[in-house]
């Protein structure tokens, strides 16, 4: 049995088995094994992959499906497998249904397949498998959101299919390597014109942008991420969205030269990369603003996820090796911290049944371990050293500065600020402050979920303290010394980040703070009902608290912009097209056979005119 085949299809097989033997215990064991195997085999294959790529080919329906485990696909697959394993542990706690296991693991296979495919048929097949499975996860819980996700996914998929078709028609190939070479040669041949190149780029960008949740194709993401099992969202947002990001890299790999040749540069910067960078920047800013304004923790993290993937796009859009390095690093960091976030969220929802800030508070005491995990995630996301999130963001920032893209760099800053704003609210709103009386009996999350969180928390810390481990591997992917330094130190042309130093300082600082907290004055407990403002009861209209409309002033400031909602725009578009469809069929299929005879006569007339003229 080939290892690649095992890596790819064990999760799917496990999913099917878990669905077939849908008994408590059995399905969980099968599912966990299925989710663990890919990681295990990836680890096992690591030495081989470092040496040279591992290949595997499969023939289906007259098409040859090629798979390859190279340095880059190993990286993406490893990230996905890590999150996938965590998801599996999470599911043990949060799900009671074989249906969930089936589709969660199916999407696992899909994601791995996308990363490992070396040709478009396999890529597309597994891409669709991944989409379909994740869609089924949403469909079970919310038809409206699933429909939105579905429609956008289908649009993306068909855009990709069309692009694949065009590429096949022009190059006669479906495998990446041949296409890449053909497109390089085509720069001199010129069979693919500028228009068609732009079309291809747009189609791929649409296809991958949807999955990555890039603005304005992001509208499905908040709903889909929140309307499913939150353990699964860890994977959905942590790993599955990376498929879109991976696609952007694919554009570079396959078409980079061709796009450069056709579109040239803009202000000394690759034009097409510029587009990607700006899409990333806009995604970061828009999603971060929207995240700040959410009242539901699921929605908050959903928007946050969108924003964070925007960072990666932005990094890739910079187009420099350092940009790629930063982006790739952020793929890992985002996967682990956002995965962690979603698992924490899963724990909160599982234990409290609440999702909105206004219903929560003071949970740190009740769920200390979960709180600790949440804290790690918050620090990592907010980009506070020495977490993995800081290292990757720092690299991205450096890359943007080096590429002389101040506005883009500004977006990174703004995004970070906003991220800080919303994680602070999460931190305080959920964990600290007054605890609603209904939440007195809340217990710590169950063990599998805690294990799941641990699986993702450890790399956050490890790669935060030793980012050089990751950058070392990324250098291998990029085939060059892009990021210098050692395990603890990152060195670029313009700066150095010593993670060990920062960590040491932080640990000392925390120790001092802890001492102060432990030995300082005790805080006085105040019941929720005791909240007064200047001696007057709080009015409903303007009740600003950390848990309720905390950022309402911001919302009011942004009122003009908030009136324009992509969501509503799409909905209106959908309604419009449905109305159009209705009008069309009522007008054309009007039931009168005489009209129908006229259609025939008109076709004859057209034929006649065509013949006569």
């Amino acid at each position, binding site marked *: 049995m080939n290892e690649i085949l095992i890596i790819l299809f064990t999760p799917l097989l496990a999913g099917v088995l878990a669905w077939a033997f849908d008994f408590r215990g059995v399905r969980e064991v099968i599912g966990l094994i299925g989710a663990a195997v890919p990681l295990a085999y990836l680890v096992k294959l690591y030495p081989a992959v470092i040496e040279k790529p591992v290949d595997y080919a499969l023939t289906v329906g007259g098409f040859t499906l090629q798979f390859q485990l190279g340095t880059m696909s190993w990286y993406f697959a490893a990230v996905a497998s890590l999150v996938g394993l965590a998801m599996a542990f999470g599911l043990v706690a949060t799900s009671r249904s074989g249906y969930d296991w089936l589709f969660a693991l199916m999407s696992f296979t899909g994601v791995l397949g996308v990363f490992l495919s070396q040709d478009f048929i396999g890529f597309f097949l597994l891409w669709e498998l991944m989409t379909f499975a994740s869609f089924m996860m949403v469909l079970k819980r919310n038809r409206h959101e699933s429909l939105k996700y579905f429609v956008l996914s289908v649009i993306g998929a068909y855009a990709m299919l069309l692009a694949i078709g065009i590429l096949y028609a022009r190059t006669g190939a479906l495998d990446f390597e041949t296409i890449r070479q053909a497109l390089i040669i085509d720069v001199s041949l010129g069979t693919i014109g500028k228009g068609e190149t732009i079309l291809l780029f747009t189609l791929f960008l649409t296809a991958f942008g949807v999955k990555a949740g890039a603005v304005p194709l992001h509208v499905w993401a908040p709903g889909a991420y929140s309307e499913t099992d939150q353990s699964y969202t860890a994977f959905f947002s942590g790993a599955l969205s990376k498929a879109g990001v991976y696609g952007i890299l694919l554009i570079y790999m396959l078409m980079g030269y061709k796009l450069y040749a056709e579109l040239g540069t803009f202000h000394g910067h690759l034009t097409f990369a510029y587009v990607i960078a700006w899409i990333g920047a806009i995604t970061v800013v828009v999603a971060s603003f929207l995240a700040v304004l959410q009242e539901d923790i699921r929605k908050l993290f959903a928007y946050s996820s969108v924003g964070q993937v925007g960072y990666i796009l932005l990094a890739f859009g910079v187009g420099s090796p350092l940009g790629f390095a930063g982006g790739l690093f952020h793929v890992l960091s985002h996967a682990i911290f956002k995965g962690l976030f979603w698992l924490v969220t899963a724990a909160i929802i599982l234990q409290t049944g609440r999702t909105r800030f206004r219903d929560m508070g003071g949970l740190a005491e009740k769920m200390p371990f979960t709180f600790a995990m949440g804290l790690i995630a918050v620090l990592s996301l907010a980009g506070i050293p020495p977490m993995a999130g800081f290292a990757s963001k720092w690299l991205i920032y450096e890359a943007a500065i080096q590429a002389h893209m101040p506005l883009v760099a500004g977006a990174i800053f703004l995004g970070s600020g906003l991220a800080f704003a919303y994680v602070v609210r999460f931190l305080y709103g959920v964990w600290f402050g007054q605890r609603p009386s209904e939440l007195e009996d809340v217990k710590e999350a169950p063990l599998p979920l805690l294990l799941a969180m641990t699986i993702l928390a450890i790399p956050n810390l490890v790669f935060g303290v030793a980012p050089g481990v990751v950058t070392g591997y990324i250098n291998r992917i990029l085939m060059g010394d892009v990021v210098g330094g050692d395990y603890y130190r990152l060195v670029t042309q313009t700066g150095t980040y010593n993670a060990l130093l920062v960590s040491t300082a932080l640990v000392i600082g925390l120790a001092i703070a802890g001492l102060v907290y432990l030995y300082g004055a005790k805080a006085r407990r105040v019941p929720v009902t005791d909240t007064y403002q200047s001696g007057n009861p709080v009015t409903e209209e303007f009740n600003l608290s950390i848990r309720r409309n905390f950022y309402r002033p911001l919302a009011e400031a942004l009122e003009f912009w908030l009136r324009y909602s992509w969501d509503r725009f799409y909905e209106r578009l959908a309604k419009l097209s449905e109305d159009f469809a209705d009008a069309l069929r009522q007008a054309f299929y009007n039931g009168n056979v005489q009209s129908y005879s006229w259609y025939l*006569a*008109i076709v*004859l*007339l057209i*034929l*006649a*005119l065509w*013949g*006569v003229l």
Partner: protein
Amino acid sequence: MLKRLLAITTLIIIGYWLAQGLAGVPFGQDRMLVGKYYLEHVVEQTGAVNAVTAVVVNYRGFDTLGEVTVLFIASTGVGALLWSRKKRRTARTEGSIVLTTGTRLLAPFVMLFGVYIFIHGHLTPGGGFPGGATIATAFLLLYMAFVTYEIPHRAFEKIEGAVGMTYVIVGLIGLAIGGYFLYDWIWQTWGWGHDNIGRLFSGGFIPIIYTIIGIKVGTELSGIIDNMIKEEVSK
């Protein structure tokens, strides 16, 4: 009014187009290819002097089998659509004695003439379909004259089916004897009637098939008439 104008304009353009196409097929010219072959070989190959008949029944017998089927479908379809458990005629005026007596006198002649038509199909214009239609006319006249007249439709249906089967079986005998479906085994294998060309007993299986078709068409058309005239009795 506008619609009529539009229709006329459209139709004139279509007509002009068709005429243009037809201009490439000038009227009255000899452009025969397969047709010429038929004319030259029809007598020797099929024993029929009527080349049309030979084409219809023999060379293009497959079409004719299809044609028989089409009529069978129509008869079946009409029977199915107008089917009801209780049907009867609902005429309001009786035929006068002129019509009834005229029909009595004419019907036997018409039937005989129908047979004459289909039995001479290989010699004269005509054949199974006109012959069958003639026979059906006899029944039509009976229906017209007598307000209570009804064909024995159950028997007719059975005859219809049985002669249809006979047609296929004649074809299958060809397959068994000559190796080809619808092979004219009478003329080509048996050689029956070779010295009779131009007389009644010639033409291979053409008279047989035309008899089948004649009976079939006669019963089918009569059945259609029966179905269309009678109305459902709602109680």
